């Protein structure tokens, strides 16, 4: 069983939950940017958690199935079509041998996810199938899909057929607005920023620039000033510079004071720019569904609220899983 890539779309990659435990050698986790949509796709088709799917960015591919399959499309509103007929998202579908899956233009969000019963069967590299394109590893030959690629699909679980027609309750389907609020825990090297600038950072409506990809999202809209100091040994002369340190996924840095960057799944793992806070894990799904020119505000929360949000998201995912079981 295979999927033949007739058109690759703008950027379509194989992703799973990610490659953890390798950050210390400079290896980011990669993996699905919007974990919620990716996981719910697996629930719909009856896969084990962690089965690899396709992450489809901005503009969808055209894929031909060489055998019958059970699939689901979740995430961004990029209406899928089978043999040219529009089909539902957030719903388990059956496709037959020879069927072609294509996508209409993006209406909202940024990334769609295709789950296939049995998962995309590419080799596991360092305990993950996720693609990390920067150094060309994981996924399908370490790169985004190209025309003519053939992807193997793993053996579908026995329950897959019984999943066809199941739907995610509408209350659980996210709406992707062009205005996003992201909750952050201020910290890391936030002591480098003046209190006035921190207030400005939290009150500014930022705009996503064209540099918004799997490595990170860059924003414009305000200016951050750093506390004056004599730069410590090893840091370098610029006030935005610190002695190079680790960058958490979701961390926010402000090179030059004018362009906050939030690091995402293919992050650079460390460097010499002052970080000022971290987007909480529960909100990274929504960040991943924002795109160039969308508006973003950062709201400060404490650890307790971040942990509550994380629990709530897990509870919701468990509920969806149960409802589709």
């Amino acid at each position, binding site marked *: 069983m295979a999927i033949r890539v007739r058109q690759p779309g703008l950027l379509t990659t194989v992703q799973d939950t990610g490659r953890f435990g390798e950050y210390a050698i400079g290896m980011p986790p990669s993996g699905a940017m919007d974990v919620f949509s990716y996981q719910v796709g697996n629930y719909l088709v009856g896969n084990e958690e962690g089965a690899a799917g396709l992450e489809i960015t901005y503009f969808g591919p055209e894929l031909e199935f060489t055998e019958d399959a059970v699939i689901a499309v979740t995430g961004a509103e990029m209406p899928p079509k089978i043999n040219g007929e529009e089909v539902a998202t957030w719903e388990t579908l059956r496709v037959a041998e020879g069927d072609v899956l294509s996508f209409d233009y993006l209406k909202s969000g940024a990334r769609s996810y295709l789950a296939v019963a049995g998962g995309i069967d590419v080799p596991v590299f360092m305990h993950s199938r996720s693609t990390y394109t920067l150094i060309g590893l994981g996924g399908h030959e370490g790169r985004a899909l190209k025309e003519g690629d053939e992807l193997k699909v793993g053996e579908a679980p026995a329950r897959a057929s019984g999943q066809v027609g199941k739907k995610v309750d509408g209350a659980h389907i996210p709406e992707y607005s062009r205005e996003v609020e992201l909750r952050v825990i201020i910290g*890391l090297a936030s002591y480098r920023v003046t209190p006035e600038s921190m207030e400005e950072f939290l009150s500014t409506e930022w705009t996503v620039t064209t540099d918004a990809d799997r490595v990170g999202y860059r924003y414009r809209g305000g200016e951050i000033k750093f506390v004056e100091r004599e730069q410590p040994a090893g840091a370098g002369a610029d006030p935005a510079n610190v002695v190079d340190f680790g960058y958490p996924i979701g961390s926010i840095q402000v090179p030059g004071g004018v362009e906050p960057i939030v690091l995402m799944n293919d992050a650079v793992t460390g460097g010499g720019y002052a970080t000022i806070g971290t987007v909480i894990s529960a909100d990274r799904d929504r960040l991943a569904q924002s795109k160039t020119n969308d508006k973003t505000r950062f709201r400060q929360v404490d650890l307790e609220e971040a942990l509550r949000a994380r629990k709530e998201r*897990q509870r919701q995912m468990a509920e969806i899983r149960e409802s589709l079981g």
Partner: protein
Amino acid sequence: MSSEVETGLPQARYSYGGDEYVFVELSEAMSLKVNFRAMAITNGLQEENIEGIMDICPSNASYMVRIDPEVLHPDDLISRLKELDEEVGDVHGFELETRVVDVPVMIEDPWTYETLMRFRDRHQDPNATDLEYSARINGYDTKEAFIEALLGSPWLVTMIGFVPGLPWCYQLVPPEEQIEVPKYVRPRTYTPERAFGFGGGFAVVYSVEGAGGYQLFGRAPAPVLDVKQRLKDFQDSIVFPRPGDIFNYRRIDREEYNRIEAEVEEGTFEYKKKEFVFHPDRSLEDPHAYNEEILGVLYGD
């Protein structure tokens, strides 16, 4: 604040990196001692195999731990880290089982020269090369004297990252001899793979081609990252450097560069290296004498 008075150590900053990370900045300033502390604490943490820890990342003057907060609450981890910090103290008596490695580099190679000339408009001094500029601002009369200082003493690998395999190296010399240079005014959009660069107080070998802001001094013929694991040194890991490694950057000429490059191509290259138990105390006491000993281990019989 009393502990600060007793030990003379700066107060560490403990911070949440969202709900999944604990970030600890041991000091704002870089020093060999603070890096030894980061290594000792993270090594200690590693040995404890605490459930809920996903990544332990030592860095230059700080470290970071990724956790599953459902299994291990960030505050519980921080409590344990504070205890570990006290146990490690000023790293007196700390030993590090490590390796001393010969890392050949060609200084003023044609590839990084071409690159740095292309990006002159992003540099502090468009009329000098990166090497000439760095020599001047560090008070060296000649470029050669600067190169001699740069390659005259070995380096400690104090952090790996940015991209897979890139080693940050801090020289094992007294603070007053540390070289320091700014990064480019605006980063380059291109840096050749294996470029030998310098930024802030750190020497690096770029593991992959890409953007970069460090001053460019030369190029290494041998890789620090081998995704296909063709070379013997990469059989256990796609990344060669490890935190705590001691690298001796050795100047080579074009002929040796070509020879090593050919060995890498054929898959026969192997770094010259020796096992070594490193004593930070001795390095802090008399770095130059200890360096002689370290290099004796690497190059002696």
